[in-house]
């Protein structure tokens, strides 16, 4: 697999925006009603800028209506507090994946299917995600998959 190594948006780099958010008082669920002024799109637009007029003027694109990692991290926290730790884990992995481009996501999924990848392809993929996107939780998850796939003969032969 070849993947373009490209700069992730600053906001999704590990530990910058995410940790900053963690120090703020927790927003209450639903965020749509209780954090209206704090919510940002993937492209860092405020919710107040996302209007019908802006659509009509052609000022908005798909990224202006995409989920930001911070919202997913907050949702992960809300899920964990409500007693849904596995969902919280999924949402936190999702937060890391917000900055991974669409085509790369599809390629990673394909590689994780049975008999697609060799062990070292998976570990390289994990390293790549961690280095490029700060996706350490996904990296750990993929490394675990690599070990299991080896144990259960699910790797490409």
């Amino acid at each position: 697999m070849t993947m373009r190594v490209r700069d992730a948006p600053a906001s999704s780099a590990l530990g910058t925006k995410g940790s900053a958010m963690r120090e703020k008082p927790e927003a209450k669920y639903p965020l749509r009603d209780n954090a209206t002024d704090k919510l940002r799109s993937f492209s860092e637009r405020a919710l107040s800028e996302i209007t019908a007029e802006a659509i009509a003027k052609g000022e908005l694109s798909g990224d202006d209506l995409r989920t930001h990692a911070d919202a997913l991290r907050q949702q992960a926290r809300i899920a964990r507090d409500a007693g849904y730790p596995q969902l919280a884990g999924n949402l936190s992995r999702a937060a890391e994946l917000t900055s991974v481009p669409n085509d790369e996501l599809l390629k990673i999924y394909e590689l994780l299917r049975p008999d697609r990848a060799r062990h070292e392809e998976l570990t390289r993929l994990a390293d790549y995600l961690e280095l490029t996107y700060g996706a350490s939780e996904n990296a750990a998850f993929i490394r675990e998959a690599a070990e299991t796939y080896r144990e259960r003969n699910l790797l490409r032969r």
Partner: protein
Amino acid sequence: MERSIRFDLLANRDINKETFVEPWPEAGLIVADSPYDPQPSISIDDDKVVEMDGVPRADFDALDLFIVSHALDLDVAVAAMAIPSKEYARMLADINVPRQDIARLIAGCTPAKLTDIIRHMNVLEMMMGLAKMRVRRMPANQAHVTNWREHPALLAADAAEAALRGFAEVETTVRIARFAPFNALAILIGTQTGRGGVLTQCSVEEALGLRLAMKGLTSYAETLSVYGTELTFVDGDDTPWSKAFLASAYASRGVKIRFTSGTGSEALMGRAEQKSMLYLEARCLLVVKGAGSQGVQNGSISCIALPEALPGGVRAVLAENLLASMLGLEVASGNDALASHSSIRKTAKLMLQFIPGTDFIFSGYSAIPKRDNLFGGGNFDAEDFDDYNVLQRDMQIDGGVKPIREDEALDIRRKAAEAIQAVYRELDLPAISDEEVAAATVAHSSDDMPERDIVPDLEAADRFMASDSDFVAVMRALQRGGFSEVADNILEMGRQRIAADYLQPAAIFDADFKVQSAINDPNNYTGPGSGYRPQGQRWKDIQAIPQAKPPTGFVEPHVGEPLSRLVEIGPAARGRGKEVVLALGPAFGRVLGKTIGGLEHEEVLKAILSGIAGEGALARIIRVYHSSDCAAIGFVGARLSGSGIAIGLQSRGTAVIHQKDLAPLNNLELFPQSPSLTIATYENIGVNAARYALGKSTVPVSVKIDNGARLRLIVKTALLHRRETDEVCPGQAPVECLFDWEPD
């Protein structure tokens, strides 16, 4: 062989179109409790599971490995596994044990333990458990909207109607995979025309599904299928890790996901490993939970006919819904694929989810006729809408939809078809004609739609998929085409995507476009007086089926002017000779003018009098005021009759031939089925009464038995009787009447 006529008839009943099979555990044809199912156990050494359900770690398959590292809460596992299964079963059925207390312990239970708990429960106990363990307080429903023509205007119109009916999610799919973006687009526009906030998905191959979501054309996905054995999982071309990654990928784009599992798939794929369907489903559900899915679509789904072929199959399907809710998963509880030829059986099965309520009672109610359902579904379809609405009304149960009026349906369908027409025009897609819009507005199925050239549609779909065009372009097209309200709803879906609130368990948007999920609307059922009940406006909406009529309308057609020929002349006295007294109810020919069967009171009088005169007897008419009861009217008449014979006649037409020496509630002949009585019958009643008076031998009048009459007319019967009872004057003695008419 000699043939019983009855058995021959039974053989041709719908139920006997089903296939029934005896269990065969070795082939996985057993719904629960296979002799090969493992016994529950767990051993944890140094925070690591070294044995589970009798299998040492060295022999774990990929599912076991995933379950122990992601699904089980090892902090509670040892304590949870030590509690007897029967204890859990009792807690589930006990309203005094809150959901959270059970969920905390269930988090540490292995697949064999979960299965073992069910062993102790009957369906009623499981329904109690489901009512309590369901994660969202308010139940909801999901619709399937497809059509075999894959006509965009019909898809949009049907999606709009489904949204108006109250479905919280609408799912479509494709016959031809290349249609995926356009089918997704049509139901997005349709639903957001019908009601802002309906979640939509297009069920296609995983990677394509993700691309549709990335374009903003869908807001949820439930295509993530999991299986209970490693070999089946791999046959499905996935692993728990690939599915979990896919789940995160969807969530990263703000899309709600739900996994799919369900009993029977492993047996169907020939890889059940001798285990029961329910045990394998327990494994699936722990994989679903471990992957971090907020919910699951289960209840056998497309394999439903397989468990239903086996003993205990419907119970097992309820059990799997319950297991999912015990694990804190949103449950979309099947009832989608064709499960039975028999209306009785399919409805009885539905009750197991309908009565307790689930997060989505159907994981696809076919909001289109089943012949247009591309999911192989349609166990309940658009032709059952009114039946379903009545079930809600009968039981005061919120089944997630509401009745709508025909004019509302036509308006919303037209608007949705025009909206998609405008979008196709603005985006330069193959035109949708006004004829197609008109047809979609009134259509029931694909058969009602004009032929459409699909080649240019498919080419346009390919171009749309390859381009950067997404739901932002769709919103602009709607704005330019004059459908800014629909654009606003899609824009709000975009804002909701940014907030990501609807990624939480069991999230839907309510009628006010507000998110409702396990976080802000957690199920709090703890017995009577708690939890969700349809009340206030919601209960009014459920009641308001258009077929329900105001009660006054039943009586009005029977009200008439007093008969001019029928006059009261003074107190009724005891008569003499071979006469027949005809005793009328207090409203007869006064305020009411017709029987329940629509016969004019005047004609009924003439018929009876003709019958009496024909036998050579005399007739005398009295009116009874102190009672509206048929027997009482007849009995009073008999006691005033010279012969001791009288006919009692109520305004609604019910008649009796009475004799003075009988007990008041006894009679010579009774004619309770007034709707079946004809003028000829009334004449025969007159004849017979005269023959009794003359002491002649008499064959009772035969009346056709129509057991449906009461069913059809009981409301009218009650209201006509009530109207007659309004005329009762308790102290007033019977009155002699003169009917100014002579029989020929």
